[in-house]
């Protein structure tokens, strides 16, 4: 089994659906420790990304992800725009020209995406950011034996990573100004990243 261009587009459609459905949840999490705009920004950005995906034929999976990246960079603003934009841009570049993506190529693309996010945002593990969902998800993929298992394990890893942000003190972004007061809140960025892996599992696992 492998991931195709159409699978990637379906994944992005599901992710946009999750951002629409969980918009208020993300706003609530972000109001507690940030500035309350994460849900509205991601929802606005992914709706714009779908418009762009539908407007033109995407040559391959990589091109589709680059289209999403540019839409997010030009419509989201805040920190989420550059961070998610960079994630998809790096993944899109890694998957450029790939028609049938296997577990190794998929994992490698995520690793490139993570490198990009960390270069842009300078966050490391346990800073209470989206990186805390990305790293365990990618580690789970690395130890999987096939794509199906990799997709399921990644979603589980991201979910655990997201939950593990709750007791952390934020060291990056606007939440960092709260210091100790940022404890006992789940990070909104790690939460939207969990939905990204959850929609990948739903769109792509068990399809081959």
């Amino acid at each position, binding site marked *: 089994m492998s991931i195709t261009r159409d699978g990637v587009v379906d994944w992005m459609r599901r992710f946009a659906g999750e951002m629409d459905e969980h918009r208020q949840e993300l706003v609530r999490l972000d109001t507690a420790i940030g500035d309350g705009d994460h849900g509205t920004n991601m929802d606005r950005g992914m709706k714009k990304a779908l418009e762009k995906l539908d407007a033109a034929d995407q040559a391959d999976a990589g091109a589709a992800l680059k289209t999403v990246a540019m839409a997010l960079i030009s419509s989201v603003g805040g920190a989420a725009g*550059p961070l998610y934009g960079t994630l998809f841009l790096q993944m899109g570049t890694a998957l450029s020209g790939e028609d049938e993506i296997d577990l190794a190529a998929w994992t490698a693309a995520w690793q490139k995406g993570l490198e990009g996010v960390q270069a842009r945002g300078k966050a490391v593990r346990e800073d209470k950011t989206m990186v805390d969902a990305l790293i365990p998800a990618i580690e789970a993929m690395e130890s999987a034996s096939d794509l199906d298992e990799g997709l399921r394990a990644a979603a589980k890893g991201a979910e655990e990573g997201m939950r593990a942000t709750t007791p952390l003190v934020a060291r990056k972004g606007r939440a960092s100004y709260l210091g100790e007061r940022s404890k006992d809140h789940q990070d909104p960025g790690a939460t939207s990243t969990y939905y990204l892996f959850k929609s990948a599992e739903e769109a792509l696992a068990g399809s081959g």
Partner: protein
Amino acid sequence: MKKLINSPDTVVRDALRGMEAAHGDRLRISYDPYVVVRADAPVQGKVGIISGGGSGHEPMHGGFVGPGMLDAACPGEVFTSPTPDQMLEATKAVSGGAGVLHVVKNYTGDVMNFDMAADMGKAEDIEVETVLTNDDVAVEDSLYTAGRRGVGVTVLVEKICGAAADDGRSLQDVAELGRRVNANGRSMGMALTPCITPASGEPSFELAEDEVEIGIGIHGEPGRFREHIGPASQIAERLMTPIVEDLPFSSGDKVLAFVNGMGGTPLIELYVVYAEVAKLAQEHGLTIERNLIGNYITSLEMQGCSITLVKLDDDMTRYWDAPVNTPALRWGV
């Protein structure tokens, strides 16, 4: 939530339409993406200066576009950084061959988006320099946070750099001057009430009827501590002491003192605060050479104020006094 808006979704666009209706003779407003540009841009041979940030801090930055200050501003959604394509559009619109300066407040989103825009500008062969403002002394452990926030000093950097660019100074000179203003400036703010973003409809934080937050950020970020509200003299002292100790300002220094309203505080109260600032400055041996009092970097309808002190040198004073002609700051013309 009661607000004078048509809809939370159109508030930024509707306000820009108002700016265009009021100042269309001297500002060009584009809506896709949002950019506010001086009507006569680009000025050939002059360093272009742009800034940008989330909306909700008016008149910053759009109200500071005009001769002697900014060449363009990029308004984001309320409290959300603008996007790199806005900044690139602004950079290209004001590029008159002498390079473009980006004035960026130190917030995670602003810094990342301006970083991307600077790369994009350089890719189009426009020389770009960045001045990062980070004057908020309320942020103490800046090693473990996103660092000190850019607040009141930003307005002063934009004014002083704008005049230096008008004076024909080079991009490197103007950037160096901007960094010097930031390095010699310190600010701290306080809030009597929270603010409500139109999109959320909820207060950004809770504050009891008789409490104030000392060290508040311009998006309602928490400050150093909360306390029972005291007289203006006590509040001014709470803000001035950390500012003076941080640089540190010392006896004999000539300063610019800026008392800024957060949006919901009347000018009569800002003058009450200024009287206390003048008294405290005198006690510290500081000479207030120049001052600015009013609502210039606001936080929607928040009640409160911030104080900024900048240690002046001759260049800064000269460029502060130079003519400026923008919707929100205007003298010498």
